């Protein structure tokens, strides 16, 4: 049905959760310590993914998850042991499952052969690792024959005895007495014994089609015989080991020739016996032959009306309305004490006692929350607008209005926080991916690594969580690859063989701070410096502080690895991490002690929807500077300003020289203050701690602003992080301080239109000191 698509999102969401469950489970799995609940959970996860995939027709996904599931099934049955190899294979399989889900989500076909290796490994695990001789797959608890034949096809069925009960009940309910059997025509029951040769499939024939074709002739009851099925290990999947007995109840008009037709192409490749049973009792309307097969279900009453079926099926007692009473009596008692009480909720199965159906949580489409966030954003803007108008009123009057507005502001803030908390997620969803990464990195580098985590429950906006994955991945790789020593070296210098990487998260003054600490060798400053000089990032002979050297690793194009290793040398360096973090309004810094290790500190806003900013004006334009970047604003005296080799202006601020960047020059804004002593210098700090003096006309005040995308209808602009709407309804751009620094540094390279005269501040090689500071 077309409505299927409506479930796809649910499916992909759910699958992502299941994948995470499976992955976490797999990572906890280790030889000799097998938690069966865990294995079962993984099995179920894969099983559910397969189930859904089948519903949507994602055939690659079905095929692969089936292989995966089979191994998990054997594992939980104890048929194969847990080995390190197997765990690795399963982790790979889980990865691949994720990839296939991705392809399915994009509605593209996965590259051919994508799963081949892993499938082979999975199959190998099945055949090579058996704990004990394989059991026959179908130890055939052969279906207990029933007095009433099952009403079934290959998609669904009702057990004969149950059906009889239902039909009996139906008949009781039907006072007219016409319900049952009224539509049955004059019919013949055929018994067909179909035993194909085992190479039937090789001829391109498909028994399922034949069975289906039979179904079109009438009502069929199919029994598949599994007796000839070899043990799984001996199974040749290309050969057929099944045979069938089919009873076909068809109109009298369906002759033997019609049945023969079905098997026309395989007549020589199978052993086929077809026999007709006695005609069924004549029925009410013998003149309506075709009615029965197509009749709506309630009218399908044939099984109940049928007399004793062929001999092979008559050995069991007649149908009972309490099916399999014996089985349930024993099993019911066996664990009855524990589970009988239907009202007894299970701990951890949240809220099982509230009608049993729901937990205390609801699932809400993200779009809805985003709409809510937007509305709150609009409210913040409206409130700022009212506040602005109110400022124009004579002071001292409208006291109550003022107070009301303050209350409104407070409520708006609380509302915003509540809404944002809906989007909040613990960072554990990202942290939980890291053990896996550490394993891989350790394996690739031959190092021994322990990962410690803390603060996993720290909550942060969903978008921030999602954007944490890449930077964290890179930082951890970096720590293992560059930071930690090999086990031998560590032993030699008296450290434990295994290095430790500690990943932590915490809230600190309205931001989330994430630290990646290692106890390795620390940053090799001599090496970093010589590399930077070699790459022309630093002038030879420059004197840099330790901290400055450490931060060189965030410069574009910097990479310390002597040879590009498998890990860090994937084309991106810490500069990309820094840039991505900074695009999220975050900052990253590094602290390192030689011989003791390094600590990377990353801080991000808790939400990407709102930020606290300082509104500034330049010419007729207004901009917003994120508060987190601002150190202070000052009005320099002429004596504080210096020209530096005619290239740029520097200013003494807090005992340090900082380079001045005139925003109006950078952005080409007319009618702006060009003299820093008559405007203001906002001292801003980029994520690596380097400072810059931004020359603006005026600082208008601090304000909470709602972040609006410039890119959704336009595109990204250098030096601009996003946009917002101010109280008067006008748009203001939110500045990207790191981007401004880049721009000011490379203006010489730029071919952009620049109406205002470009100052000569971007010489290709400012002093190393400035490189660092600016």
């Amino acid at each position, binding site marked *: *049905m077309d409505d*299927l698509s409506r*479930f796809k999102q649910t499916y992909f*969401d*759910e699958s992502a959760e299941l994948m995470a469950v499976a992955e976490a489970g797999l990572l906890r799995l280790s030889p000799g310590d097998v938690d069966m609940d865990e294995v*079962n*959970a993984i*099995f*179920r996860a894969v*099983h*559910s993914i*397969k*189930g*859904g995939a*089948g*519903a*949507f027709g994602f055939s690659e996904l079905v095929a692969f998850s089936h292989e995966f599931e089979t191994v998990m099934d054997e594992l939980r049955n104890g048929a194969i042991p847990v080995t390190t190899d197997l765990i690795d294979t399963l982790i790979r399989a889980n990865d691949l499952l994720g990839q296939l889900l991705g392809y399915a989500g994009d509605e593209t076909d996965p590259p051919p052969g994508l799963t081949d290796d892993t499938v082979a490994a999975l199959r190998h695990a099945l055949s090579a690792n058996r704990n004990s001789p394989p059991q026959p797959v*179908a*130890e055939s*608890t*052969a*279906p*207990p024959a029933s007095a009433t034949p099952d*009403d*079934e096809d290959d*998609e*669904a*069925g*009702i*057990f004969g005895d*149950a*059906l009889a009960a*239902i039909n009996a009940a139906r008949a009781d309910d039907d006072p007219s007495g016409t319900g049952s059997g009224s539509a049955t025509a004059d019919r013949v029951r055929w018994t067909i014994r179909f035993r194909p040769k085992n190479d039937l499939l090789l001829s391109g024939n498909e028994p399922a089609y034949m069975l289906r074709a039979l179904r079109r002739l009438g009502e069929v009851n199919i029994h*598949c015989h*599994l007796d000839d099925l070899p043990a799984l290990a001996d199974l040749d999947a290309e050969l057929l080991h099944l045979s069938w007995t089919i009873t076909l109840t068809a109109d009298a008009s369906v002759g033997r020739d019609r049945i023969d037709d079905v098997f026309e192409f395989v007549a020589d490749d199978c052993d086929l016996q077809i026999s007709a049973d006695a005609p069924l009792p004549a029925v009410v309307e013998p003149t309506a032959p075709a009615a029965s097969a197509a009749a*709506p*279900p*309630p009218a399908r009453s044939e099984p109940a009306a049928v007399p004793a079926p062929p001999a092979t099926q008559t050995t069991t007692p007649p149908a009972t309305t*309490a*099916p*399999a009473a014996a*089985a*349930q*009596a024993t*099993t*019911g008692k066996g*664990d*009855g004490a524990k*589970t*009988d009480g*239907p*009202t007894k909720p*299970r701990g951890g*199965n949240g809220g*099982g*006692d509230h*009608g*049993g*159906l729901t937990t205390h949580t609801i*699932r809400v489409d993200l779009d809805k929350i985003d709409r809510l966030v937007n509305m709150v954003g609009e409210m913040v803007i409206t409130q700022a607008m009212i506040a602005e108008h109110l400022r124009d009123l004579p002071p001292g009057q409208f006291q109550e209005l003022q107070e009301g507005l303050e209350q409104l502001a407070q409520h708006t803030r609380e509302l915003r926080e509540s809404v944002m908390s809906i989007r909040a997620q613990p960072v554990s969803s990202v942290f939980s991916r890291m053990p896996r990464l550490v394993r891989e990195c350790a394996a690739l580098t031959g190092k021994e690594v322990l990962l410690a985590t803390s603060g996993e429950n720290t909550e942060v906006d969903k978008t921030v969580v999602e954007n944490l994955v890449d930077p964290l991945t890179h930082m951890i790789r970096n720590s293992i690859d560059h930071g930690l020593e090999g086990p031998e070296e560590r032993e030699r210098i008296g450290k434990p063989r295994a290095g430790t990487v500690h990943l932590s998260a915490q809230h600190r003054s309205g931001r989330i701070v994430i630290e990646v600490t290692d106890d390795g060798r620390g940053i090799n400053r001599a090496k970093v410096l010589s590399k930077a000089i070699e790459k022309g990032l630093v002038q030879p002979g420059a004197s840099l502080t330790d901290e400055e050297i450490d931060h060189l690793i965030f410069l574009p194009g910097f990479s310390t690895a002597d040879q590009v290793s498998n890990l860090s040398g994937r084309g991106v360096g810490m500069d990309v991490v820094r840039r991505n973090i900074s695009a999220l309004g975050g900052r990253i810094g590094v602290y390192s002690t030689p011989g003791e290790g390094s600590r990377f500190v990353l801080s991000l806003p808790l939400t990407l929807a709102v930020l606290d900013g300082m509104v500034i004006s330049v010419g007729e334009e207004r901009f917003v500077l994120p508060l987190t970047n601002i150190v202070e604003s000052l009005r320099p005296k002429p004596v504080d300003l210096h020209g530096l080799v005619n290239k740029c202006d520097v200013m003494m601020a807090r005992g340090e020289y900082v380079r001045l960047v005139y925003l109006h020059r950078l952005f080409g804004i007319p009618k702006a203050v060009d003299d820093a002593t008559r405007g203001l210098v906002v001292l801003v700090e980029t994520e690596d701690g380097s400072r810059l003096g931004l020359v603006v006309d005026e600082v208008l005040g601090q304000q909470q602003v709602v972040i609006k995308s410039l890119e959704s209808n336009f595109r990204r602009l250098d030096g601009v992080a996003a946009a917002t709407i101010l109280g008067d309804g006008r748009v203001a751009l939110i500045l990207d301080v790191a981007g401004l620094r880049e721009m000011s540094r490379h203006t010489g390279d730029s071919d952009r239109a620049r109406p205002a005269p470009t100052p000569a501040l971007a010489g290709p090689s400012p002093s190393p000191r400035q490189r660092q500071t600016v």
Partner: protein
Amino acid sequence: MEPRVKKKVLTVDDSRTMRDMVSFTLRGAGYEVVEAADGQAAMTAIAASKVDLVITDLNMPVMDGLTLIRKLRAIPAHRSLPILMLTTEADDSKKAEGRAAGATGWIVKPFNPDKLISVVQKVCG
């Protein structure tokens, strides 16, 4: 057709996707559908309100489908409650197991919506 009280179907599956699909299909066919994510929750649901049919997955956490069926059958009031098992494998041994536990019938996942409706109509009208 004369007005009738909607039949209530309980769908038990740990997969949200599957529950959604069953619910959507059956609601469209005029059934009231309630959901439970595992056997235990299903037991609770059944105790809390009368249901006319249970459609249950087999592999589930906390309490699996076969256990659910057995437990229901052990309660006199639910001896004749129709229970369909929704399963990816409908081989004979699986069916035999279900039958032995007391299932009324089975539906193969993924299911054809029309098929599901027709089977449901068959067992609970």
